[in-house]
């Protein structure tokens, strides 16, 4: 285990500390006990990459929507019902044959919550945050993604209020697919820029083994 930021072995002290903090805030009338469960439920069950996948699938299917997404991403994403905390000022970075985009927050862990939910652990680690700006291609290789030397790699460091969603390229062999079918190809990592969407063959293999 080389990474110190993993959450699997919490000191029991942390459990005691947060319990005490919660009690004090409740007693002072600054926190409602049930509200913690409500907000946790939203982030565990409602927000997540399925939302972003709908945005991507719509952009692949509907050129007018794609245009709106590139001009005013926040408004276009709101059309599908996604908005709010850490998604107030959205920018979509479109991958092309010439440009591959990847997102990071080197100073903390900023991430587009309405479309992707809370970030995976690796996104928050010192390993990712330190390396992806200086050696993005090496980092992407560890994700199994090799970017050709003639393709520009753009790393978006979300250090301010903007949040970025990568629009991956539509996989070949998907002509005539519905938005619902296309959305199944869109992985979380393909919207961070550390992966590509599934191919139709990969999706078929995944569904066969499920």
């Amino acid at each position, binding site marked *: 285990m080389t*990474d*110190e930021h*993993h*959450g*699997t072995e*919490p000191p029991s002290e*942390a*459990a005691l*500390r*947060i*319990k*005490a*903090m919660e009690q*004090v*805030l409740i*007693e*002072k009338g*600054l*926190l*409602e006990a049930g*509200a913690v*469960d*409500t*907000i*946790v439920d*939203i982030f*565990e069950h409602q927000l997540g990459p399925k939302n972003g996948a709908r945005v991507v699938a719509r952009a692949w299917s509907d050129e007018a929507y794609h245009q709106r997404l590139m001009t005013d991403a*926040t408004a276009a994403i709101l059309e599908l019902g996604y*908005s*709010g*905390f850490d998604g*107030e*000022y959205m920018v979509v970075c479109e991958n092309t044959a010439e440009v591959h985009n990847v997102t990071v927050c*080197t*100073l*903390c*862990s900023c991430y587009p919550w309405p479309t992707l939910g809370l970030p*995976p652990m*690796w996104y*928050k*680690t010192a*390993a*990712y*945050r*330190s*390396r992806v*700006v200086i*050696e*993005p291609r090496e*980092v992407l290789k560890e*994700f199994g993604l090799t970017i050709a*030397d003639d*393709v*520009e*790699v*753009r*790393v978006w460091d979300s*250090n*301010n209020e*903007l949040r970025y969603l990568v629009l991956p390229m539509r996989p070949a062999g998907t002509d005539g697919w519905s938005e619902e079918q296309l959305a199944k190809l869109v992985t979380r990592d393909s919207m961070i820029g550390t992966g590509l969407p599934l191919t139709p063959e990969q999706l078929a293999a995944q569904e066969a083994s499920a």
Partner: protein
Amino acid sequence: MNSIHDLGGMTGFGPMPFEDNEPVFHEEWERRTFGVNILSLMAGLYTADESRHAMERIPALRWLKSPYYEHWLDGTATLLVELGIATEEELRTGKATEGVPDWVAKLKAVPAEAVAAIVATNHNKHGQVDHAPLFKKGDRVRTKNIHPKTHTRLPRYIRGHVGVIHEYRGPFFYADKRTIHDPEVACHTYSVRFDGKELWGESAGPKDAVYIEMYETYLIPEQEQADD
């Protein structure tokens, strides 16, 4: 501040750590810590900028050793004590014995039934700036060589380098000032493109670039010296 959180370009943290079937939270204390921090923010006890700044002030060795959500826990505790909302003793015992400042007494707990709507609201982060943007798309700019002891969103790896204005983004609240009790100050903000070779010299990969948002106060025209 030049603390351990400012990681861009460092070496020594190992390969990418992956976890199959990773849950959103691993432990109950992580859920509670996330919830308490965000709800305190929603209630108006502090801003997200203050929350980040509190985490940046965790001593480096402790920061490196502690798991991610312990940073949140430490940061929240620091703010509650600094703002006079709770004492260290109260946070240890879980029993409220002291009052709160007048501005806090006026705040209310966020009701559970109001949470979903607040989380889904696009809250404004723009303020008033009394001058037009100084730079426009395509301008070549240099970042200042500054090392404030307070909160900044200008990472070390970007300081003193030349980039090109990619887009004007708007008059955003100024995090550097929000964390020193000046919450309404705003600053013109730009996405700036830095070529990999400019940031990393010969270590840069072929055709790499970093795009990052810069407050106008971080930037000077290319010709001027960064440490002026």
